[in-house]
Structure formats: C-alpha cells, structure tokens
C-alpha cells in the first residue's frame, strides 16, 4: 500500500477524525495553562527569548497550517467547480459561511482581548505602586549613601591626619565617626586596621586591584560588598602623595540590609518589567495569537471537512438524479445518512424503484399494444405535427407495400412515389382538422381505394396524429358494381320510357301508312312530334349523365358563406307564386370551400325545395358548430317518406316522376368532396330539411 493510500485510509478513519480535533483542543488547553502559569513566572521568564522563540514558531506553524488547509480547500473547490462536480458550489457556500461565522468573532475577540491586555499592562506601570517602590528604593539607597558618606568622611579624615600619628588617628576616627572599621593599605595590602569588635571584619574580602586603581586614578572610591551576615560599605581615599590608601567601612547587618536590598530589588524588578514592556506585550500577544490560531485552525479544518461530509449524500443524490434523467430507472443512492437528507435519499430510492416498475409496466403495455396493432387488419400510422413517423404497424406496411421505416423518419420520405397522394391527403386532413377521406392510388399497377381516418393523438396538446388506413378496394369495387347495376337498370328504365312512345308512334305511322288511312298525315305528324319529343328527352338525360360524370375537381379557397348562400338563393326568388326564399346567415363565417360547387349544391337543394313547396317560405340558414359549419335548407313542402330517405342521394333516384334523379347525387358528391356530410330530416311542422356539415 502506498503512503498516499495509507494517508487516505487514515484520513477517512473516524478515530483520526476524532483525534485530530482533540489534539488541537489539548494544545489550546496547554497554551491556556501556560497563560495561567505566566502570572507565576518571573519577568525574565515572561520575556525570555526562548519562550518568545517557541511562541513565534508555534504561531508561524499555525499560520502556515491555516494557510495550507485554506489554500488546499480553495484549490480543491475551484477544481471541483471547474470540473462541474455536483455539490461544489453548495460546499463552497457552506465552507465560506462556516469560516466567516467562526473567523469574524474569533478575530474580533482576539483584537479586543489583546488591546485590553496591552492597556492593562500599560496601566500596571502607571499606578501608585510604582511610585511607592521608587520611593522605597530611594530611601534604601539614601541609607546606604549615608553610610557611604560616613565612611568617606572617616577615610578622608585618616588621609588628612599626621602620618606619624596614624595609629592614634585610626582609633580616634573609628570611635568619632562610629564606623565599623578603618585601615591603611599599601599597594593593595592591609598594613594597619582598627575595627569594631562586633563587626564581622573577617567576612569582608580584600578589595580588588581595580578598587585601588580607581583610588589611584580619581583619589577616592567606594565599594559595597554583600557578605553572609550583612553588607560592607567601604570608602577609600588616597593619603596625599604616599603609597597609602585610607579605607573606612560601615557594616550594615543583615536584618537591615535585607530590607534595603528587598526595596532595591523589588523596584529594580519592577523597572526591568517596565523596560521589557514591549517584550512582555509581545509574549502575551503571542500567547493569545497562538490560542486564536489554534481555534481558527480547528474551526477551518472542521468546516472544510464537515462541508465535504455534508455534501457527499447531496452529491450522490444529484448524480443519481442525473442518471435517472438519462433513463437509468431503478438507480439507487447507496450513501447512508440518518438525517433529513437520509429521508430524501430514501424517498428518491423509492421513487426510482417505482419509476422502474412503471417503466416495466409501460413496456409491457407497449408490447401488448404493438401486438394488438400488428394483429388488426387496418393499417395504423402515427406521426408528429412535423410529420415525423412515430410508429407504423405491420398491416400498414403490407397495405402500402413499404419496408419498415426507421423511427423518426419523415412521412414525406416514406410515402413517396405512388404513395404521394396519400401523403397529400394526410397533410390536407391534418391541416383542416378533417377526419376521413377516401384516397385512390395506383400501387403495384393496381388501383387501390383506401379509407383514411385521422385522429388527434390522445393526451391533449399538439403531440401528433394517428391514422387508420383501411383498404376498401374490394368494397368500393362491389359498391361500384352495384351502383353501375342500379344505374344501368335506371338508365334502361329511363331509356325504355321514351322508347315505348317512340316505338308506338313508329308502329302507328307504319300501320296508317300500310293501311293508307285517311288520317295518315295527321298520324305521321303526331307520331313524329312524339318521337322528336322523346328523343329530346333522351338527349337531355344523356347530357345530365355526362355532366355528372364530368364533375370538376374541388378548388378550395376562403370565401364568405353568406355571400355564397345569397347568390344561390337569388336564383330562386319569385320563381313560384306563393313561395318565398329567405337567407339567415352570420356575416362573419369564412369557410375554406369551392364556392362554385357549394353554390351549385345549395342551388340544387333550393330547386327541389321550391318545386316541392306549394306555398310558404323556403329558409336557408347557416350556423357555427364545434369544428364545423352547418348549412340548412328547409321547406314546408310535401316531405320525403322515410323509405325514400335512404335512396335519396343515389343517382337516378327521383320522387318527382320527371327529371334525371342526379340533382341530389351531385349535391352528395360535392359535400363528400369537401369532407362534409349531408343528411335529410323532416321539417317541423311539415316539409323537408337538408343539413350540410362542412369542416371549419
């Protein structure tokens, strides 16, 4: 295992995570203890260079530690943000908030505390205590100075004595000045001495050479010696030009000298402390700084670590959400957490599981629907509003004789060539919102009739369309055959009707002419007239049939419906006495139709209505209905029997006993060409009402 791996393992170890803050806490406590002990330390210890060195190094180490942790955290956060790692922004905010909330109070506390401390230290040296200590030292020194002055006076008196009577002078001076010793030195060697027997003269060491050098240089010198039982203050004076030096000493016993020394030492200690005031402030500030930095280090480390720990489940959750969005249903977050985030993870895992189950159910349903669609005989196509193919079933592929297109292929590319009419029809139907249309196309050299039904894909919105295509070629062919049979029967019947008078007229003329009857010319004239009349009838019938067969294609354009209906009704105003025609229609109905053909269809209906009405009003009206426009033509005529209503729109069916029976068939065809519907109803109280529904 590499060192990095080991460190990484230890970094994740909860024992380490607990131990490190505890160590920091212990260090802080130790520093606090040191601060508490500081009051027991001497000024030298407090201003010790070693202590300051240690504190400075601790502070430097802590500062570098803080900078390292901070910079490392910042670099990692920046890299995470650059890599787009989820949770890095949240972690940044969290860490900044925690650091700020700990850094600001700690720093404020540090600055206030150190300022208070420095002010307090300054105040120590401005109290009456300093003056008392100074006065004490002055009194003590004055006492010593007084003793030194007595000794100096005694030494000077000895030096001024007659050299021949020095012995007497020594005794006199010792007694007169009450000094504890007087003596004479020659070249640093004691030659004569007189001392107080109670003074410990033996404890006084011999003055050093420098003492006598000073006397030689300046004429006099003073020296203080501390001995076991007290203090000796000795003063020396050069004896004229001789090599002798007169020395007088005053002994201050320990009981007194201790008091003097204590006064002096206490004030000097105080002065030392005062002199080292900046260093003292520095040591105290360094202690505070060390504590502050230790707290900051711990806070910073804990903040960064905690922010990382907190964002782990959030990051895992975000990553799992991303996987779910990419279709990874059933993906679970494996991070354990016991707080609210843990509940969120649990909910997410439940949601993911449910989504997976629903997806499986949906897949099963889709498979089932695909099976159903493939088993139905009708061709089913689904496509979007932009004609992107969504699905196509097997029946449609067979019906249209096309290969399985790829999903998302454009319908125009699939329905091309012979199938282009089907695509055009679908485009027209979807554009107009119409529902059904019959499409004729040639596929594989054969004429095919397809019934196309279009419906909006369920679910609302504009998601697309579903188309059902049914091959009605056989049905249409059968219907056509039946229609042709019916047409042939009716044509035969219609042709037979005029043929009978023609035949009878021709036979009558022939009989008259054969019998040479007297009324032969009259019979010829009458017969000829009849034959011409019936032939004319035959001709009209053939013309109508030709017109029905040559129905022009529909040319759609936007037109005002009121205008169309007014024009159609205008042809039948005042045509029949007692019969009036009225038009009721809103002005703002605009409709996409072939105006000529709609006018012709309404005209045909009006023609029948006027003919069927003896007296009264024929009403033409139009109104809007959901997704369509309804045109009604109602008359108060004799009405249509229910039995005839089914056959009313068949070609050559007529209830009038005259005419071709193509009028309503033409109307029916025109309406069909407009994807509309025509129906016949009884009018109330009497008569007939035709209703045309056109898509709007």
């Amino acid at each position, binding site marked *: 295992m590499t060192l990095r791996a080991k460190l990484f393992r230890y970094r994740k170890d909860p024992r380490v995570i607990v131990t490190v803050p505890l160590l920091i806490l212990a260090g802080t406590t130790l520093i606090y203890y040191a601060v508490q002990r500081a009051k027991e330390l001497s000024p030298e210890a407090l201003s010790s260079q070693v202590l300051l060195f240690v504190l400075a190094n601790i502070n430097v180490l802590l500062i570098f530690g803080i900078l390292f942790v901070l910079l490392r955290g910042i670099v990692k956060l920046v890299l995470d943000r650059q890599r787009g790692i989820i949770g890095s922004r949240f972690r940044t905010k969290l860490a900044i908030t925690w650091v700020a909330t700990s850094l600001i109070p700690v720093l404020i506390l540090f600055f206030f505390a*150190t300022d208070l401390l420095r002010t307090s230290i300054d105040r120590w040296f401005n109290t009456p205590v300093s003056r008392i200590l100074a006065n004490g030292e002055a009194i003590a020194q004055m006492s010593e100075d007084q003793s030194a002055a007595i000794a100096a006076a005694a030494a000077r008196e000895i030096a001024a004595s007659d050299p021949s009577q020095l012995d007497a002078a020594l005794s006199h001076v010792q007694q007169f000045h009450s000094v504890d010793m007087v003596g004479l030195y020659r070249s640093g060697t004691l030659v004569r001495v007189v001392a107080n027997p109670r003074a410990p003269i033996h404890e006084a060491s011999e003055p050093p050479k420098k003492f006598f050098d000073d006397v030689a240089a300046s004429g006099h*010198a003073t020296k203080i010696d501390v001995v076991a039982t007290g203090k000796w203050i000795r003063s020396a004076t050069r004896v004229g030009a001789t090599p002798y030096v007169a020395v007088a000493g005053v002994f201050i016993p320990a009981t007194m000298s201790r008091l003097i020394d204590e006064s002096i030492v206490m004030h000097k200690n105080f*002065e030392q402390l005062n002199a080292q005031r900046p260093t003292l402030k520095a040591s105290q500030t360094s202690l505070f700084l060390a504590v502050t930095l230790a707290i900051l280090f711990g806070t910073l480390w804990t903040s960064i670590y905690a922010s990382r720990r907190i964002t782990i489940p959030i990051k895992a959750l975000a990553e799992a959400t991303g996987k779910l969005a990419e279709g990874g249903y059933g993906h679970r977050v494996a991070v354990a957490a016991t707080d609210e985030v843990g509940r969120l993870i649990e909910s997410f895992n439940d949601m993911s599981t449910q989504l997976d189950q629903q997806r499986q159910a949906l897949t099963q349903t889709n498979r089932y629907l695909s099976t159903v669609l493939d088993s139905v005989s009708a061709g089913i196509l689904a496509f979007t509003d932009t004609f992107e193919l969504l699905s196509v079933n097997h029946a449609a592929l067979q019906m249209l004789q096309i290969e399985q297109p790829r999903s998302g292929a454009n319908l125009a590319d699939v329905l091309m060539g012979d199938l282009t009419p089907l695509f055009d029809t679908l485009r027209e139907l979807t554009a107009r919102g119409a529902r059904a249309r019959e499409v004729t196309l040639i596929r594989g050299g054969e004429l095919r009739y397809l019934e196309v039904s279009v419906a909006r894909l369920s679910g609302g919105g504009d998601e697309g369309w579903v188309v059902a295509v049914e091959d009605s070629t056989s049905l249409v062919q059968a219907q056509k055959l039946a229609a042709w049979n019916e047409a042939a029967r009716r044509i035969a019947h219609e042709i037979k009707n005029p043929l009978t008078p023609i035949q009878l007229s021709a036979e009558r003329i022939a009989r008259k002419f054969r019998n040479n009857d007297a009324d032969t010319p009259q019979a010829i004239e009458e017969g000829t007239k009849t034959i011409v009349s019936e032939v004319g009838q035959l001709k009209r019938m053939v013309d109508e049939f030709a017109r029905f067969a040559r129905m022009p294609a529909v040319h759609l354009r936007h037109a005002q419906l009121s205008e169309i209906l007014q024009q159609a009704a205008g042809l039948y105003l005042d045509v029949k006495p007692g019969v009036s025609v009225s038009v009721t229609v809103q002005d703002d109905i605009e409709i996409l139709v072939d105006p000529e053909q709609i006018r012709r269809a309404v005209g045909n209906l009006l023609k029948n209505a006027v003919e069927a009405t003896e007296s009264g009003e024929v009403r033409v009206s139009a109104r809007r209905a959901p997704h369509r426009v309804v045109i009604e033509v109602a008359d108060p005529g004799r009405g249509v029997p229910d039995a005839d209503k089914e056959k009313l729109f068949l070609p050559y069916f007529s209830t009038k006993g005259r005419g071709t029976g193509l009028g309503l068939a033409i109307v029916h065809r025109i309406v069909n060409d407009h994807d509309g519907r025509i129906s016949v109803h009884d009018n109330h109280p009497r008569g007939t009402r035709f209703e045309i529904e056109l898509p709007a």
Partner: protein
Amino acid sequence: MAHAFEREETIKGLQSGVPTTLTYIVEIFRDRPRWFDEGIARTRVEVIATFNSLTREYLLNYRRDHKLIRSETFNNLPALQKAMTTIDEPNLFDIGKRPPYKLKVRVKADLMRGWLLYFIPWEFSTRWKAARVASPPEPAR
C-alpha cells in the same frame, strides 16, 4: 559605535538590571572587482552589560563566537558605555597566508529588539559599514 545610548529607554533598561547586549558581526572579504567579494572570515562579538543594583556595579561580559573571553566591572556609566561601543580587539581574524590587500570589514551591531504588530520580532540594527584595511607591514628580517 556612536549614538548607541541616546535613547532614554536603553539607559533605563540597563540600569534596571536587564542584560543589555550589543552584538557586533565582523566579516572580512577579499575585494574582487566586477565580481562578488570573496568571504574569508566572520566573527560575532557580544558585549553584555548587567547592572547589579545591590553592589551598584556594571558587569560587562565580552563574548566572541559564543565563548566568554573576559569580564569586567564598572562603577560608572560613561566608562561602561565606552567599553560597550568600542571594539578594540587585535588579531580578530586569522587569515592565514592570504594576500592581505584589498580587504574590507563590515560591522553590524544588533542593538535591541522591537515588535511589529506587538508580536512580530524586529531587530534594530546598524547598516553594514565597509572599510578598507591597510596591509600589515612586512616583518623585519
């Protein structure tokens, strides 16, 4: 060294018994024109004065390269100040048989310590002083 005891705090500190140290760092180089000078030797001289308030004497310790060379006592301040600010040390360096020409001496005295922001130590020092030294006279044969 001049102006070492101009500050009242220095005198007061000294007389309160705080050990007062002047540190002299003496370096000797061989001058090399248009190139870095060649360092030959370096020594550190410390003069530490401590006032004994009971005997009213100043003890002056003279240390070289962290070794005590000598101690002296002074009864008056001016004599002490003169002893502290004057380095009179013959044979400070042994430069062996090097040519003694073009030698430079630099002296630095560390006076006392100050504090930046109350906790960052800041040494008060003189600038480096350089002086050419004359070649010693050839010994008479």
